[in-house]
């Protein structure tokens, strides 16, 4: 026998199920209960940076859009600083910019949308610089443990080329699954980011 480590073990994950909206976004379930609700619009009037919409659909292995999916986003501000006490960078962060969004897909079309700003570059490990990106966490019925991925931007080719995480993806073609396509129409900037859970063009998911 050896000495015990006396470590606790992480609580096992379970699927969020089809009715995840009741707890995390009650208005999508069809009722109103809390005074303050979390949403997919995470910019305030004081938020600096370029306003963008990130949108797309999440597809299952048969190519069908998932219409009961819930996503959460986490990102830095336009200067590349996270609203968190452990972000050591000597940069300002806007008071009302949490950097986190909760996003539900549309029950009919499966389209999800995040209204945010384009994040700045953030530090990576060992002096590296990470290209601008938004972290996404995806849960739904049929997903046993939340899936983590990242959204990069098609107009950041130079930064993307030296990003340590993108460069860690061995199959070069798979890196494209993490790059959202920029479109501009009527002065609005929309990045399209479709997520493929399984099969052809499967999105890269991370063990973080």
């Amino acid at each position: 026998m050896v000495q015990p480590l006396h470590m606790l073990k992480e609580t096992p994950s379970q699927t969020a199920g089809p009715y995840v909206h009741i707890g995390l976004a009650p208005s999508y379930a069809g009722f109103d209960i809390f005074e303050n609700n979390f949403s997919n619009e995470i910019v305030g009037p004081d938020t600096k940076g370029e306003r963008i919409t990130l949108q797309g659909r999440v597809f299952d292995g048969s190519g069908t859009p998932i219409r009961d999916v819930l996503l959460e986003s986490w990102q830095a501000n336009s200067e590349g600083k996270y609203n968190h006490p452990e972000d050591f960078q000597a940069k300002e962060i806007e008071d009302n910019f949490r950097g986190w969004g909760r996003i539900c897909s549309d029950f009919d079309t499966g389209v999800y949308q995040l209204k945010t700003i384009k994040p700045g570059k953030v530090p990576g490990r060992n002096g590296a610089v990470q290209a601008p990106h938004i972290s996404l966490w995806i849960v739904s019925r049929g997903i046993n443990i939340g899936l983590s991925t990242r959204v990069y931007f098609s107009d950041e080719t130079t930064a993307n080329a030296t990003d340590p995480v993108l460069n860690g993806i061995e199959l070069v073609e798979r890196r494209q699954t993490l790059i959202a396509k920029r479109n501009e129409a009527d002065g609005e900037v929309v990045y399209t980011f479709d997520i493929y859970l399984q099969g052809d063009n499967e999105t890269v998911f991370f063990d973080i």
Partner: protein
Amino acid sequence: MLPTGPKPGEYYQRDRDMQPPAYTPIYKTSVLRSPKNALLSIDQSLSELTGPMFNHNELGPLDNDMISNYAQDGEPIGQRIIVHGRVLDENGNGVPNTLVEAWQANAGGRYRHKKDVYLAPIDPNFGGCGRCLSDDNGYYFFRTIKPGPYPWRNYVNSWRPAHIHLSVFGPSFSQRLITQMYFEGDPLIDICPIVKTIPDAEAIKRLIAPLDMNNSIPMDTRAYKFDIVLRGRRSTLFENRLEGN
């Protein structure tokens, strides 16, 4: 400037042998919703070591009380219970000030959701969702009605055990967790395909809340205790500088 001592560093690697894998054909919806490629392991950067913070001003005074937070003209029908425990990390430290969200069916197993068409009735005084922030020691509690079992289309005759869905954050996005809490003694637990997505029998036990008579309120409410453990983290050594300076 020299560091003054060890500071918190990376979160421990997730134990994927204990966690449910993505592909679990007994739970049929997972068949088409599971990636076929391996997950790509990445070193944690600031992007993974940080995460959203919440504060008390964002919550209402009844948000953690499902007995009263949707009461229209009376109280909900069913077994009155308290669900309480601590949010801990794998080192055994309490996780303070973290958001815990909960949702569930009513006493008859019916969800207040426009997509739920089970014939058991809605309870007009029960919404079925709550949320709270853990205190300085990681302690949290909800007051609610014990949910009923619920039929679902997996096998022809599949029923979920009574369960409460729980969502927890922790200080970093890498700890984000959604799980389900079950109740001691429920015979449906052993035959549920969703429970059985977890490959480790000991891990399943950690999702079953024991009856806690010591914290029950006589002539009023029984209690169930449910601790939630999030990933712990190491202390950085001097040569392991995330800053890269």
